């Protein structure tokens, strides 16, 4: 099994049995930010791993650079993207997995998942965050 690591530092807690996105909270205004801001005025916070789908679309064509998946255009698999409203915090943009795009519905309950994305030059598997339909919904 190849080693795995998050695609970027400070994006989500890892390794973890219950990973969370890492955001920040402005200590003066109470506003949430994602990704976390590095500032004296911000404290790091773990964001809720559950929320509701606010809107969505599907990426139907192979993106140009800086997209890093190495795949021929004809082999590209479309992926869904959306914003998840994390109650009382913020809406985060994310890939949507574990569901056929035709079944996506605004308002549906979603939960965070960590997914393998691509391998880097060192053969390490890079992990990204995504949201999938909640098992309870």
């Amino acid at each position, binding site marked *: 099994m190849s080693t795995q690591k998050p*695609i*970027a530092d400070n*994006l989500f807690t890892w390794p973890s049995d219950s990973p969370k996105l890492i*955001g920040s909270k402005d200590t003066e205004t109470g*506003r*949430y*930010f*994602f*990704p976390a801001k590095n500032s004296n005025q911000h404290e790091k916070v773990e964001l809720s791993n559950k929320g509701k789908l*606010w*809107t*969505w*679309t*599907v*990426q*139907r*064509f192979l*993106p*140009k*650079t*800086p*997209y*890093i*998946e190495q795949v021929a255009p004809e082999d590209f698999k479309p*992926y869904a*993207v*959306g*914003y998840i*409203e994390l109650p*009382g*915090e*913020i*809406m*985060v*943009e*994310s*890939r949507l997995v574990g569901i056929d*795009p035709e079944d996506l519905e*605004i308002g549906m309950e979603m939960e965070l998942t960590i997914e393998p*994305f691509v391998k880097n030059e060192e053969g390490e598997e890079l992990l*990204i965050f995504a949201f999938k339909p909640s098992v309870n919904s």
Partner: protein
Amino acid sequence: MTDVAIVGIGIHPFGRTDGVSGLQQGVHAAKEALSDAEIEWKDIEFAYGGSSAAGSADTMVSELGLTGVPFMNVSNGCATGGSALLSAYTTIKSGQFDIGMAVGFDKHPRGAFNADPEAAGLQKWYGETGLMLTTQFFGMKIQRYMHDYGISSDALALVAEKAFNNGSLNPNAWRRDPVSKEDILNGMMVSDPLTKFMFCSPAEGAVALILCRADLASKYTTKPLYLKGAAFRSRPLGSFEVFSPSLEIERGPSPTVGASKATFEMAGIGHDDIDLAQLQDTESGAEIMHMAENGFCKDGDQEKMLQDGDTKIDGKLPVNTDGGCIANGEPVGASGLRQVYENCVQLRGAAGKRQVPNNPKTAYTHVYGAPGISACTIITN
């Protein structure tokens, strides 16, 4: 204080012109505008211009003439043309100069725009994982809007169908063949719910305008037009913009709302006074949402307006009479000025087959773009 008049207009056809640089297209438009006003480059006292991907506008002086004219470059994304126009307006208003030029041009590579996360103040992973695409933003914004206000895919297709019909009547448009509503709906899905026919593409083109003190306008033209309002705004807190890894839960107005309001206040007129409007239609959904953001209807009213044909050339409020971005493509630096050019042609009664009937007197333009900017104008005859 003097009013500001538009006394000369010039355009280089939009679309793809192989072998002609963006800058040369700008020079073409500039020369056409000078000739329209029956003046020479040496008569121009100042100029503002810009492009997003085709070089510095001020180098046009090497082709137009080394007159020493102060020529300032403007770089403001999709509002580059609008910002050049606004700068020319305030320069004349201030009394500094009497007559000048605003010019915008561009030439983009084919296909969707490339995005650089770090240039946009974002982290690399955002682009690497395939979230940094303008097309996704447009799909997601209209998807939510359709859900909230009951807009149908049919309405999206009606906007594109109108754009191609109007483009077919415009000799300067890129897409000049009508496309049926059925073909638009059945076209390849790009970013749900938007098909390929509902999107504009990056393109090429140029527009130049000559502006002067209104009390001098009769020297240059028998049909002067007056720039009554022009305003530019960046995004307020809570607006939904392209390239946003996260959004505030509490939603706020878009930059369009502020720019539009300021433009109407400046002109001192109401929405009922507008005879035609050019609204940013990066894709079909944008035109629909911008009808409401600019105050021409309530959210959700667009469905009936489109089904009734209200925004066609012979409708109650003709929108994007030249085919808009969908039929003209989007050369970023020129796009906003194209809208103003079209309004000038319409208010002069010179739009030929696409002429808005009953002698329109007042016309509106609106551009919107990344990273959340908007500029509007109101022109009267």
